[in-house]
């Protein structure tokens, strides 16, 4: 194959991939359900109904009580204090994030005005680069902060809620009908099918209105 034809083929494949992704996105928003396949089995996650949301609240409350009693798990504010004693200052990170956000908004307003005046491409691109670099720095600090506070009680609870979303909303297509994949939380917690759980969790969290 010549280099030119190779390039054409690559472009066509990319176009097909993009169309496939757009089709998937359309499927995800047409109703409150997302269907997917794992190992040739058909699954779906859907938005929780009122009864399931009540069940979620009950489980969340129970978990919160358990976490509060666990002395190894600290609340975010206590964890921040501990870090401070070790020389890691989270409030300094917050201040830096605030400063970067203020700079970002100020640059966005300048860029917005430049767009409205139909300013030249180089002006617009310069502002864009500045915003990109501010966003990049902010994302790096946020990632570091998230990592530091990963084991706080609040974050443990959030990650538990994400698991419950998956447990309550995951269904499997069997014998021509949709059935709940897990009948109980105990059954869900025992499962070792990481591929299914990770895929379902990723989709389930996109649907729920928090």
């Amino acid at each position, binding site marked *: 194959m010549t280099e030119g034809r190779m390039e054409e083929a690559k472009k066509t494949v990319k176009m097909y991939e993009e169309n496939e992704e*757009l089709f998937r996105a359309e499927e995800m928003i047409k109703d409150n359900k997302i269907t997917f396949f794992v190992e040739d089995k058909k699954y779906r996650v859907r938005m929780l109904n009122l009864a399931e949301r009540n069940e979620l609240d009950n489980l969340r409350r129970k978990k919160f009580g358990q976490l509060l009693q666990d002395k190894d798990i600290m609340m975010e504010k206590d964890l921040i204090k501990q870090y401070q004693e070790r020389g890691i200052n989270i409030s300094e990170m917050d201040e830096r994030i605030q400063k970067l956000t203020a700079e970002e908004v100020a640059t966005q307003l300048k860029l917005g005005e430049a*767009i409205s005046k139909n300013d030249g491409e180089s002006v617009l691109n310069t502002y864009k680069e500045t915003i990109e670099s501010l966003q990049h720095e902010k994302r790096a600090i946020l990632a570091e902060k998230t990592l530091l506070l990963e084991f706080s009680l609040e974050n443990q609870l959030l990650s538990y809620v994400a698991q419950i979303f998956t447990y309550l909303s995951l269904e499997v297509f069997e014998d021509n009908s949709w059935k709940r994949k897990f009948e109980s939380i105990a059954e869900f917690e025992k499962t070792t099918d990481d591929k299914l759980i990770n895929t379902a969790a990723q989709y389930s969290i996109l649907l729920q209105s928090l």
Partner: protein
Amino acid sequence: MTIYSSLQKLAKSVKYQNLFFASKEINGVRLFKNTFDFSSLQRLFLNYLWNFELIYIALSIDKISEKVLEDEIFWDAYLLWNRKENNKKSAINDKQHDVKLVSGKKINFPNKQRQ
């Protein structure tokens, strides 16, 4: 392409902009199968549709740069600036229509019975 950039691409498309317009004008034309209890993705998509509608209107009326459609950073910046400008205009407008009441001053309202 992430799910978010796919949704932005769909919201920007002529197909969905027309459908969005039609759903507001014609009874029975719907964007989604459900008519209430929208998921986070659906709400986000509606937000994108609304934003792109504003941008298309601005592109057809004002002489703004077409680069606004090229990248998220551009349309975010334009929408933020546009919102701030609109707030400024409505604040000025509100001030002009304010009724200033001075305490202690007698106001003679027209009396129908006297006329």
